[in-house]
């Protein structure tokens, strides 16, 4: 049903979705005080969306750092500037690759599972059962996952960046023979706390975490409670999150520069 509707007017439908998403955000924000009683549930969700995404984030961070080290060494050797490899790896990862790749992975790993989980909870009447047990499902189901996403994303991003630096170091210093001291001293001479770590890593990842969690929870919560609806909702989570991440990345970069 939603598939045929989507062909009707994609612009109108997208606008409706964005509007509903905004209203849903307001509902969640209003439920935040009530959900403080379910703080334990938030911690539990932090385990699911955060700690369970750790492996993929670490592995991907390592490989992104390694491939950056390899490529940059190749290009910089043309100018005899291989000593700048550490600097460029760090800046590329902190400012762009870290937050963006982490957010995309987070949307794929945690976002989809949140959407599918909430969608299935609807389909199997668990949400309705909570309503019947006088438990507000927005406060118990939606908000903890939303908050957990906001908290988990920056932490995951930091881990990603650290592993990325390690990967760049592994390739640059251990394999390609850049001097260890040069690698670090050039990096520490150029990378700044506020501009690169706070603005790049932290701010961006907090915003991305908020957006991805909002989209994931919203899609799961509003999808038709059928297996087909859940499948569509997970797809929409990934598509909408990816677009939102990359578009916001541009806006944020422009603002934080």
């Amino acid at each position: 049903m939603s598939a045929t509707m989507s062909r009707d007017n994609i612009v109108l439908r997208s606008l409706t979705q964005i509007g509903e998403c905004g209203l849903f955000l307001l509902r969640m924000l209003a439920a935040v005080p009530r959900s403080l009683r379910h703080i334990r549930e938030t911690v539990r969700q932090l385990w699911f969306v955060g700690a369970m995404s750790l492996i993929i984030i670490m592995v991907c961070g390592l490989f992104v750092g390694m491939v950056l080290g390899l490529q940059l060494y190749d290009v910089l050797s043309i100018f005899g500037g291989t000593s700048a490899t550490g600097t460029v790896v760090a800046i590329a990862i902190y400012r762009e690759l870290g937050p963006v790749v982490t957010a995309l992975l987070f949307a794929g790993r945690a976002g989809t599972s949140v959407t599918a989980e909430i969608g299935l909870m609807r389909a199997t009447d668990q949400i309705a059962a909570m309503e019947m047990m006088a438990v507000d499902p927005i406060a118990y189901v939606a908000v903890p996952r939303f908050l957990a996403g906001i908290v988990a994303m920056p932490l995951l991003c930091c881990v990603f960046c650290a592993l990325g630096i390690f990967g760049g170091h592994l390739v640059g210093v251990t394999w390609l023979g850049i001097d260890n001291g040069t690698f670090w001293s050039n990096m520490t001479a150029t990378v700044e706390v506020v501009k690169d770590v706070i603005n790049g890593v932290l701010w961006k990842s907090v915003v991305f975490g908020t957006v991805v969690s909002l989209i994931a929870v919203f899609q799961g919560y509003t999808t038709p409670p059928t297996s087909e609806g859940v499948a569509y909702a997970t797809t929409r989570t990934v598509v909408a999150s990816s677009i939102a991440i990359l578009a916001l990345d541009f806006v944020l970069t422009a603002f934080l520069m």
Partner: protein
Amino acid sequence: MSQRPSYAVGTGLFIVLGFTALGYLATQTTSVANTSRGPSYTVEAHFANIGQLKERAPVKVAGVRVGQVQSIVLDPGKETADVKLAIDNRYSQIPDDSVATIFTSGLLGDQYVGIQYGNSKKAVADGGTLALTRPAQQLEEMLGKFFGAGGSADNLSGSYQVKARFTNVGALSVGAPVKMAGVAIGSVQSVKADPVKLDAEVALSIDKKYSQIPDDSAAAVFTSGLIGTQYVAIQPGGSPDMLKDGDELVLTQSALQIEDLIGKFLVSGSSSDKKDASSSKADTGSKH
């Protein structure tokens, strides 16, 4: 709660790991890592030109970091920059006639303050001044002494052709500028290898405006800057006859490979140092 510990412990570990990573990023990979910790004392130095020196740039003695630049202010009323250096208390034995110089780490690197010890028995004290300083060398100035200002060729209203032969054109490409006294007067029209004479034949297209070039002028392949593109420079000679369309420049100087230059310098330097160095023996031997 029955299943509380299983996830609570894991979540706690996750949070600790995340913050550890953040702390690591913020302190170990950024300029914070360079901030000297521990007590330090301040020394002043006045420079005529600080170049690209920034606050928190390192202060080094014999290449070893001893402190950092604390502040840079322009002396009121004077045309010198007042640079305050924070030097670790460990290094309190710096002679007061030491020379502070602004160096660049590598060709493209950041600038730092290097201190070369003097002979005085007296160490500079907290709040003291290093009177002897050497300002930053501007790379542009240095290069400017060698080559004139750059600039591309104007639109050619009309031009005439001149040929020049080089044993090595380096990375000279078609369209590269032809300059005289640093001003573009034309462009390279073609670069061909001569199969008989085994050298490169370069056709230069020169603007008609510049028709008063002596025919014994020399052509050389130069590089603009250290990593810039190459161009043909024409050094005018003293002949009363002028270059005509189709003439050939006889005196040429081929492109200098930067590796060759450095190689020559290093070889001559090492051979003059120690004649018995076994590694340089082969080189010096072949030169004789």
